[in-house]
């Protein structure tokens, strides 16, 4: 074993655990910033996971698997977009339907690989020099390539939303679609594009679970609800990509806390309670954030969940 301290190991581990959440929640941020809630996230993660598994075992390339997982998530998101944007169906209803559909579909196409093992995956990539920095190095720079990629995605998403022309349009579409429309932006096209990007990222999140957390496929058990946590994280991060990273890693640490205490032999707090801790923590932080006047509703897109109809007065 290495000689790193438990704290460093815990933090490093939290990053791995948080990474699927980072991908999925940034996907959620992008889709919701365009005004479309995506409750189908869990389904998209599962589809991403199963596709990755199949493609890796077929081609032997984890990279191809990862990309395919994202595409699968994006395809499922396309269905959501069609229902929610073109047909103006209730976003909550069709998101839920999509989670059910995604779960069922993933189980169906995953039949042949039940009980099989993933044949190839990524391993950790030490970044030279940076990984030698004490404390910071082992926490941040001894991760796998996908973790670095997730940071890149978050940074890119943040710059995209805040610093680019398209990002500005995207935000306008989520805040006030009638205005965006009047400014000649295509609300429909913008929403489609970003719901699909959201699905792509959710698919990546699912891929990560298969590639780096559990190398086997077990239907809904594979993600076991982290899609919903990602959804909560979107709110917790007040729809900001960089905050998503903080929230996801915090969740990772909180998950670890339960077992770290148990492993240390500290048993005054019952395990059942500790098992609730990460969720409780998320709720508490949400409540605190909402109680604070200045951060209340910060970032919540004004037109979130509302279909856009031009002719309506």
């Amino acid at each position, binding site marked *: 074993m290495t000689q790193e301290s438990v704290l460093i190991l815990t933090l490093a581990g939290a990053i791995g655990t948080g990474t699927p959440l980072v991908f999925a929640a940034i996907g959620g941020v992008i889709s919701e910033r365009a005004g479309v809630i995506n409750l189908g996230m869990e389904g998209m993660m599962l589809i991403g996971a199963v596709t990755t598994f199949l493609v890796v075992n077929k081609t032997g390339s984890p990279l191809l698997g990862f990309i395919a997982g994202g595409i699968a998530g994006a395809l499922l998101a396309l269905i959501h977009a069609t229902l929610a944007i073109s047909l103006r169906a209730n976003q909550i209803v069709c998101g839920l339907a999509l989670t059910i559909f995604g779960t069922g579909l993933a189980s169906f196409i995953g039949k042949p690989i039940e009980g099989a093992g993933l044949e190839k995956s990524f391993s950790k990539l030490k970044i030279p020099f940076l990984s030698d920095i004490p404390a910071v190095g082992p926490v941040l720079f001894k991760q796998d390539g996908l973790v670095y990629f997730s940071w890149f995605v978050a940074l890119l998403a943040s710059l995209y939303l805040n*610093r680019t*022309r398209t*990002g*500005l*349009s995207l935000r306008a579409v989520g805040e*006030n679609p009638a*205005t965006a429309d009047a400014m000649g932006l295509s609300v429909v096209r913008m929403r489609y594009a970003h719901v699909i990007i959201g699905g792509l990222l959710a698919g990546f999140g699912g891929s990560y679970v298969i590639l780096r957390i559990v190398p086997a496929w077990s239907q809904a058990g594979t993600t076991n609800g982290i899609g919903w946590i990602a959804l909560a994280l979107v709110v917790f991060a007040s729809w900001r990509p960089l905050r998503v990273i903080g929230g996801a890693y915090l969740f990772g640490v909180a998950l670890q806390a339960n077992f770290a205490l148990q492993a240390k032999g500290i048993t005054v707090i019952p395990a059942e309670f500790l098992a609730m801790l990460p969720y409780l923590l998320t709720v508490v932080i949400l409540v605190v954030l909402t109680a604070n006047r200045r951060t209340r509703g910060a970032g919540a897109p004004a037109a979130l969940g509302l279909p856009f109809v031009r002719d309506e007065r």
Partner: protein
Amino acid sequence: MIAARHISKSFPGVLANQDVSFDVSAGEVHSLLGENGAGKSTLAAILTGLYQPDAGHVELNGARVALKSPRHGLALGIGMVHQHFRLVSQFTVAENISLGDRKQNWILSTKKVEDAVREIGERYGLPVDPRARISELTVGEQQRVEIIKTLYRGAQILLLDEPTSVLTPQEVTTLFDSVRTLASEGKSVIFISHKLGEVMDISDRVTVMRDGKVVGNTAVADTSREELARMMVGRDVDLSAIRATKPAGAPLLEVRGLTAKSARSHVSNASIVVKAGEIVGIAGVSGNGQRALAEGIAGLTPLIDGHVTICGTDVTSKGSIAARKAGLSYVPEDRNGTGLAPSLSISENMLLTEDLPFLVNHKSAVAKAEEAITTYSIKTPGASTATRMLSGGNVQKVLLARELGHDPQVLIVSSPTWGLDVGAVEFVRSKLNELRSQGRAILLISEDLDEVRALSDRIYVIFEGKIVMECPGEGADVTTLGLAMAGASA
């Protein structure tokens, strides 16, 4: 410069535009005048590419163009400032102006836009801080942003849909200066308004619409207010002052030391009396506590201090139902919201404030709604149309019909003629006058000084939540009132 050629447009049950043609030349300010629901906003929407005409077409500099979208229109130099602003209130001014501008680099640089905003602001007298968030700006400033937005995109033709209805008299003057500068640079301005004085003041030519058709087109120099009013409604209108003919009776509404808060409005220690057979005006620039005052009286917001008595019943902080029972009706200015449920039909909206039996009799409600539609000449396909589908002025008529239908002892009306055409204004005024002669008490809250002066027997001026002046309506001096409204007399 821009012309409409035989344009027709219909909505389910309505012919909003019918064979409409008109011309606007460069450097001209052209007014579109017409009753509520005449089709002005619809025509403007077609000229900018927001709606597609069912028949006919738009011509630009003599060439036929098919405007596909507002973006397309803007690219061709046609910009519009809507009745309801199209701004993202969470964005800054510069961000709103950058929105949808394809000439921008993909990586935004707000600096350039900010400079441009300042420059346009200076040139046309439209000062605004480019870094301010829209939600922090006054309505007048927001309107400037809308105008700058179109100018920034190089608009040569500017459509303004009822731009003055949200402005204070001072702001109207500044806006008109800007419009004149624009025209002097060869830009065309299409100006939609109900206020004949303004139309006479600012425009070169006027096109009058009625029931979706053009009924007249004339140079301002060749016409008069009265003639325009006649063209609009098809008969003579009389908007001269009307006063009580009988002496006022016993006080029906007594407000003592009222202090209340509502949304962003507050009023402190206001005392008001309205007697039977009296119209009392509350003059003031909007946002000076009118809303808190009205809602405090109507029981919609709890009083912090003070007393309200309606027809001898003390209704202080007893809620809106008690106030209603005591004989009060309240017509708020925020029509589709506080006043009406926008998605409900006209007949359902008429029912909202009634003491309903458990089972609603829809038939009689529809009959009642239909009666109101005729007496108030509401333009609508039918009683079952949702009120949000109606034009701005017609929404107000529905609300008035409902509230006056209760035959209230005490009536509070807030900006009752805001956005109404002259015919409707005349109708509302005569309605209020009729109530007065029946011995009812009316509290008229309005920013429109002309209206307050024309109707009121007594006038209070409200400024920053306080009643700062009281005077008789007969012979009230505009300047004195104006100064008091601006807080100068205190």
